[in-house]
């Protein structure tokens, strides 16, 4: 089977392109499906590429994290051995998943926790909403969590009249601006300090009126705003970075202390966790606690990690619920070629090294999982036809940095092959044009004179270029320029330049 490594042919749009222009308070809005929203990748990417502010913010941020990560990873003499162990532990977990989930359930229950199982987003949201209702409260505090983002929990709770307050600073910014996260680790990476100040002033009722855009002041405004919530919240909702099957221990890794606040102060804690987040034994944490922080924030260790096992009398929440979430994960597991996407520990290192992510930002991917990992995870979770496998240059940088060695480029190629196979035997426009072009090229290249004449043809394109760039070619070239700019062809072919130079001698 042939594998088409270029851009896919045009797809039907998924609705209007998101209005993510910085300088405006409003974000992209909260979509119905957090795994599938906004315009198609090529359209969203084109809009994002025209947004210079966004590209500057992203360029600075990803460069900074890349540098920090490289420095602290370089400090660890056994980094490759840790990656091998991390990858093998995750493969082992997937192979023994039913047994390990049952062990986890038994141990959490033995320590006074309650385990719930949720087949999909709706079921998970229902479980959480019922648990919150039972505590007779209409406001809950939340720790940043990809699993709850993925199931649209906040929106589901809002429909039940329950306000879920995000307490991670970046998530709070995203929530106040009615926006979507654009990065797994730093969800408000697309916003600069001035935008954040404006968002606080307009949307945070108790923001000091003379708030400046100094990061410390902004953080302190959030501290004051959220402390009131922490002290009065009866219910908290979190995700989990790891769950230890053998002991029933859950772990949340964070920086700000909002996690600790949520995990210890309220009476009731509800944790929503994807079924792949397991590790078999407590000692396995020693591998991931080294891999995760260095890969993620480029720190030797994140400021806070909390671990708890069921309920501890007199210390922390006295009621603990664990919701085990499928929501497409068993579909990913069934796919032998792609199942290692479930190894992902959500560190986001692959985003920060990806040349495509760096230029288009997270929103273009139309999913809470952006970047290279999102490009393989999202289509597998939804099982839908997707253009995301093409949102990559296949440069391999994501595989190099992945702490659990997910071979993202190979999986992308496999997913592309499937998209092509799905398209069926009828070749699309792109395919026909490609074949015709190859035929023409082989005719021209077979003869020196023909090649010389053909090589002069692109000069004609200089007529439609502006500032050295061609933005749109006439059909069939439009299939190429739809997602790319073309540099202006040179005035002269190399052959002509050489001939002229020889004449002058």
């Amino acid at each position: 089977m042939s594998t088409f490594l270029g851009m896919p042919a045009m797809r039907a749009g998924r609705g209007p392109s998101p209005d993510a222009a910085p300088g405006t308070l409003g974000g992209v809005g909260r979509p119905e499906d957090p795994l599938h929203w906004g315009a198609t990748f090529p359209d969203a990417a084109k809009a994002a590429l025209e947004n210079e502010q966004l590209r500057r913010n992203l360029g600075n941020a990803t460069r900074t994290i890349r540098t920090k990560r490289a420095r602290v990873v370089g400090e660890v003499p056994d980094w490759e051995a840790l990656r091998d162990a991390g990858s093998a532990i995750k493969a082992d977990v997937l192979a023994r998943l039913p047994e390990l989930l049952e062990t986890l359930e038994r141990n959490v229950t033995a320590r006074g926790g309650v385990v719930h199982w949720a087949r999909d987003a709706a079921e998970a949201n229902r479980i959480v909403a019922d648990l919150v209702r039972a505590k007779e409260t209409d406001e809950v505090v939340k720790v940043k969590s990809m699993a709850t983002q993925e199931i649209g929990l906040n929106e589901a709770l809002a429909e039940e009249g329950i306000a879920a307050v995000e307490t991670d600073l970046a998530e709070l910014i995203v929530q106040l601006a009615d926006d979507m996260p654009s990065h797994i680790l730093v969800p408000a990476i697309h916003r600069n300090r001035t935008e954040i100040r404006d968002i606080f002033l307009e949307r945070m009722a108790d923001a000091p009126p003379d708030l400046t855009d100094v990061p410390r002041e902004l953080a302190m405004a959030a501290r004051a705003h959220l402390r009131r919530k922490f002290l009065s919240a009866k219910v908290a909702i979190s995700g989990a970075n790891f769950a230890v099957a053998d002991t029933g221990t859950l772990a949340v890794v964070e920086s700000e202390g909002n996690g600790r606040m949520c995990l210890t102060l309220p009476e009731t804690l509800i944790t929503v966790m994807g079924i792949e987040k397991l590790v078999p034994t407590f000692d396995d944490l020693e591998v991931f606690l080294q891999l995760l922080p260095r890969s993620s924030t480029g720190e030797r260790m994140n400021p806070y990690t909390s671990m708890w096992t069921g309920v501890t009398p007199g210390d922390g929440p006295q009621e603990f619920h664990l919701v085990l979430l499928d929501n497409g994960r068993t579909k990913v597991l069934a796919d032998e070629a792609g199942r290692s996407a479930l190894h992902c520990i959500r560190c986001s290192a692959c985003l920060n090294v990806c040349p495509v992510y760096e230029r288009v930002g997270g929103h273009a991917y139309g999913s809470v999982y952006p970047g290279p990992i999102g490009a393989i995870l999202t289509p597998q979770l939804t099982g839908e036809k997707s253009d995301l496998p093409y949102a990559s240059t296949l440069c391999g940088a994501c595989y190099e940095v992945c702490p659990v060695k997910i071979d993202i480029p190979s999986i992308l190629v496999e997913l592309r092959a499937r998209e092509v196979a799905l398209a069926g035997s009828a070749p699309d426009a792109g395919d026909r044009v490609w074949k015709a072009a190859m035929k023409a090229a082989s005719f021209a290249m077979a003869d020196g004179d023909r090649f010389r004449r053909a090589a002069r043809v692109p000069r004609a394109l200089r007529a439609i270029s502006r500032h050295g760039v061609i933005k749109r070619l006439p059909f069939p070239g439009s299939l190429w320029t739809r997602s790319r700019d073309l540099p202006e062809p040179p005035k002269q072919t190399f052959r002509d330049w050489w001939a002229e130079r020889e004449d002058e001698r």
Partner: protein
Amino acid sequence: MSDARTEMLSRIRTALGGSAPEPAEVPRVYRSVGEHGAGSDAVLELLVDRLVDYKAHVHRVSAAELPALLAELLLPGAPKADPGRSAEGQVVGSSDYRSPDILPTTRRAARSVVVPSGIDRAWVAGLAGVEVFRDSREAPLSAVELDGIDAVVTAARVAVAETGTIVLDGAPDQGRRAISLVPDVHVCVVRTSQVVQTVPEAVRLLDADPGRPLTWISGPSATSDIELDRVEGVHGPRTLHVALVS
């Protein structure tokens, strides 16, 4: 229709092909111990370096000097650590603080301190003029009460030199998780014998009783969410003092 649990487990078994898969062999050739022993000069030096890098304030004292150090750090009127004084204790500059509201408490005096009930009473015996609250699982202070307290003094279970991390495990001298979280200043007393080099060494120690609530602390609370500018002190204590006791 089957219940969610049965259906999810059956989906997983189907996804794995119905056959019992072989558990994978995990290669454990990474370092499980460091080259330096617990409490050795090399690990202590490394720990201090990492803690300072994380903007924690480190003070190296003998057991006999500890009460005097705590008095110096917490008593009203005592000279406060300032950026000009480095020696053992490393202190971070604070010129960017704009108003008293965003000033961490260490720059003021503590009026009240909370300690876990199992702490050595001699440590805080010299804190005349400071109200000392004792907290335990049996007689816990409320979150609101803790919010009115300036500082907390706890012991620790283990410290990891390579990552600048201190772990509390809720033992009687470390207390409930809330007390080391809500007050603005955390003074953590670490005995030099408790300092190991690597993360695996700490995990092995904690594995003796993994069911305890564990808090891993590396420097004070911090955020990098605004243009990746690191701001210390968001929700947890804004100042972390580590008293390294030999």
